[in-house]
Structures are given as C-alpha cells and as structure tokens.
C-alpha cells in the first residue's frame, strides 16, 4: 500500500519534533530540576529547595554578572539602535555610494564575536594600541586603559558589540524606511512639514514594530553574550566584566558546581521569558493602537 502524502508530511516532521522536545524542552526541564538540588560535580544531589538560589544571589560574582547583563545590554541596545537609525536615515537621503557604505557598515556581522573581541582587544591594548599611538603623537598624558580598568572594562565590550551589530540594525531599519509609502513624504511636503519633523512625528512611529524586532534581536544577543566576553576580557579584570552566560559555563565545567550553575541558568531563562513577554506586550500594544 502506498503511504498518503499527508502522512508523509507528518512523518518528515518527526525528527525535528523529537530533537526539539528532547534536546530543547527536555534539557530545560532537566536544568530547572537540578537547580533545586545540592548537585556539585555530578547531578545527583538531594533536593534543597531554593537554597541554591540564595547561595547564587549571596555571591558577589553572580550579582556583578547579572548587573552587567543590564549595564552592557542597555548600552549595547541603545547604541546599536541609535547608530543603526542614524546610519539608515543618512543613507535614506539619496546619497551616492549607498551600497559601498552599506557593505562597510554591515561586514562585522559576518564575523564571530571571538574575532570581534580579539580585534578590539588588540586595538584597545594600552601598551600597543590606540593609547600608545596617541601618546606617540605627543599627547603623553593620553590614557585609554579601559580594558584593564575594572570600572571601565565593561564599556569596551559595548564598543566592540556595537561595532559588530550596528550594521545589522542599519539594514533592518533601512528596509523599514524604504517600505514607507512615498506618498506620505509627498503629503508631508505639501503640508510644509520639515524632514526632521516628518521623521520624528510620522515615520519613526510607523517603524515601531521594526524597533521592537531590533530590540528582541539585540536582547537575545545580550543574554547569549559569552564569546565576546571570553575573547575580549575573559570576564576580567577580576570578575568585573562577567556575565551570566559565562558564569554558568564556568560553574558547569571548570568549577564543577552544577547545582549553582543550573540555578543561574534558570534565572537566565526567567529573564528571557520576561523579554519575550515584554516584546509580545509591545507587539500587542502596537496592533491595538
């Protein structure tokens, strides 16, 4: 007997569904479960309720890492979208060589965060990089040692992150600008409204859903940020640039504290769920308007 095509359509989905249910959802449940145990080197501990969470939040390193998520994330998202918006608007003014500029702005997105981090680490290296160059020019007092300054190192991550992702924001926002009906611009000109006011009052509000998309995209990068930190600062100096993603991996594999790592992972999961909820809310709000 021949198998009906509808049956085959269901069958081809089976590997993906199995893979996802076990690999993604099964793993999530496993991790959440372990976060309530005393597991150390092996995931075999007894249930200890919320002890691991108290332990986690009692630890300065985790608090720094979790705070960094928001410090780094807030600045990274703000500057990425800001730079992307400015670049997109500039390119939208009918400039020549648009695809040339676009190619330059966007290429970093093709590079890994490891490459990004190593490149910027080299440039910001105080003894050989930018600082040395400017001092060589005669400005002996110039100092740009953020990379080795525990208070400032987090901002070097922001610079590298923005360099990596701003081009993508530019492309997305530019596509949004292009999708706006030319008649709106003509109507604005007939009404005598300046380009600045057209952008601020009409065009940008129309792009609200695009900004929500950008926000979600960048927020996911922030939550996942591991490679960039490893390549650029290794979490240091000290643990001043640690982030939850790195904290978790370190505790899983180097410090063999699976229970605490799982508690951190669960906190990260809750953060992601909050981001999803927020973006859904923003999306809904938009459609209701």
């Amino acid at each position: 007997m021949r198998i009906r095509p509808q049956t085959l359509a269901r069958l081809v989905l089976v590997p993906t569904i199995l893979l996802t249910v076990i690999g993604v959802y099964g793993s999530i449940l496993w991790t959440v479960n372990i976060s309530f145990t005393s597991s150390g080197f092996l995931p075999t501990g007894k249930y200890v309720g919320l002890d691991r969470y108290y332990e986690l939040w009692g630890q300065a390193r985790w608090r720094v890492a979790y705070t960094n998520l928001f410090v780094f994330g807030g600045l990274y998202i703000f500057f990425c979208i800001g730079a992307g918006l400015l670049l997109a608007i500039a390119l939208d003014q009918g400039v020549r060589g648009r695809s040339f500029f676009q190619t330059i702005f966007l290429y970093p997105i093709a590079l890994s965060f490891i490459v990004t981090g190593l490149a910027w680490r080299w440039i910001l290296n105080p003894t050989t990089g930018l600082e040395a160059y400017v001092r060589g020019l005669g400005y002996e007092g110039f100092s740009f040692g953020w990379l080795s300054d525990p208070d400032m190192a987090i901002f070097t991550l922001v610079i590298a992150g923005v360099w990596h992702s701003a081009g993508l924001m530019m492309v997305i926002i530019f596509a949004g600008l292009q999708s706006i009906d030319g008649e709106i611009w003509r109507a604005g000109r007939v009404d005598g409204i300046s380009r600045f006011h057209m952008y601020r009052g009409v065009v940008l509000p129309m792009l609200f859903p695009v900004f929500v998309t950008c926000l979600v995209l960048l927020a996911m990068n922030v939550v996942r940020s591991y490679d960039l930190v490893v390549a650029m600062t290794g979490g240091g100096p000290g643990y001043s640039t640690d982030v939850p993603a790195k904290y978790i991996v370190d505790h899983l594999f180097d410090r063999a504290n699976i229970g605490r790592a799982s508690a951190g992972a669960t906190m990260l999961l809750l953060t992601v769920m909050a981001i999803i909820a927020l973006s859904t809310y923003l999306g809904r709000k938009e459609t209701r308007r």
Partner: protein
Amino acid sequence: MKDQNAIAMAAIYAFLAIAAAFFAIPLIIMLLTSFKTAEEVREGSIFFLPESWSLAAWGKAWGEACIGRVCEGIGGNFWNSVLITVLATSISLLLASLNGFALAQWRLRMSGPILGMLLIGAFIPYQIMIYPLVRLFATGGMHQTLGAIVTVHVLFGLPILTLIFRNFYIGLPEELIKAARVDGAGFFQIYGMIIVPMSVNVFLVAAILSITGVWNDYLLGLIFAGPNFQPMTVSLQNLVGTQMGLPEYNVNMAATILTALPPLAVYLLSGKYFVRGVTAGAVKG
C-alpha cells in the same frame, strides 16, 4: 535654500565617512598587523604600515603556532570547521526545507503549535541546555564526537531555517501542489521535482545564514566538538589566550583573519542574499 541643502548633504557625507572609518579600521589594523614582523609589532604603532610586507605570520598561524605544547597552528582546525559547517548546513537545510514544506502546504492541524514550539525554543540561551545535552551524548557514547557537534548545530539551527522555508512555501499557490497530486506525484516527488527547483534562492539565503552561524560558533564547539574536531574559533581563542612567553600579535592577527575569512568571503560574494539571510530572522511571523 540651495546652500542649506548643500551643507546638509556635506554633513551627511562627513557623518557617513566617519562611521565608515569606525567600522573599517579594526579590519585594516588586523590586516596591517598580520603582515608585520614580530619586531615591528613590538616597536611600531598599530596604525603604521608594515615596512616590509611579510607573510611569515600567516604561515606560522596556519601551520606552526603553538597552542599550549602543541605547535601545529590552526590549519587543521580550519578543516574541522569546514567539515562541521558542511555537514551541519546540509542536514539542517534538508530537514528545514522538508519541515517548511510540510508545515506550509499540507494543512496539518498541528502546524501552528509545532512552529510555535520550534521558535520559542530558539529564544532560549544555549547555556540552559548544554549540560543536559552533554549528559545525553555521554550516555549515548557520543560525547565530543563529530556526531555530537553536528547534532547540536542542527538542533539549534533548525527553528529559524524552518521558519525561512515555511514563510516562502506558504506563499506558493496551493493549486500547484494539487495539480502535482492530480498528476500522480507523491510527497517526495513534489518536493524534489517542483518545490526544490522553485526555492533555489531560499536555499541560498538559508545556507548563508547557516554557514556563517555554524562557522562563527564558539560555545558549542568548545563543549561538544572535543579535541579531535575542535573548530577554528576555539583554537583561535586558545592560541591567543594561552600563549607562553611574549605574545606574537602578528601571528594572532593572522590567525584571527584566517578564521574570519570564510564568512567574510561569503558576505562579499553573496551580497543581497546575505542581507536577506541576516534580516530573515528579523521578519518573524
């Protein structure tokens, strides 16, 4: 009025030029450094041109640089990355296009929830899932094998790739599939003879997304690939991070560029497909 416009345009060009410098300079500095000799790197500034363009650092990065005690460079890891990328991308594309076709054109009752389940999973950071996956592979005797690293790449790549294919296939007229069914074609014949030839562009976009994603990955390679299939990004980080003695920045930069080269080439060669690939994630349903 004319003058004002000219000034405004000049300001815009100036802004774009400064921005272009900001984006371009890191790559230029990496390139310059990689062509210098070790001595020059120590003495000169990063902004100076090399006195004599030397390929020595490139050769060393590829074949002789020491990671810990092993001095084999990262050339071998290049081929590991190629192998992982080719396998993971081909399996992902095959599965994702079949999934997309099944979800878009066969009126399956569960297609909405299945897609939702896939996409929500795609938002979860890997850190939450890696340890259970390590245990799972260990149980199956697959820990740190080629199979393990390819499987995790497929697992995490599938949602977005499935979405890309599904969004394209949902736009195809239903009557096309009906006509093919009347003509006697089965599921795989319709897929292979009608759907795949129609979606060459989508395959290209999805392949670009998958290739750059897999190649640029660090975390999964670090944990799942093991020493035998260690990808280039991991060995690069090890090379730069664990050097003994004086750091050889020219070698580091050559290694960095070698690692960046394949996705950069994909980017420069594929043009608008790359843009469509990276923005495909942005147009979620």
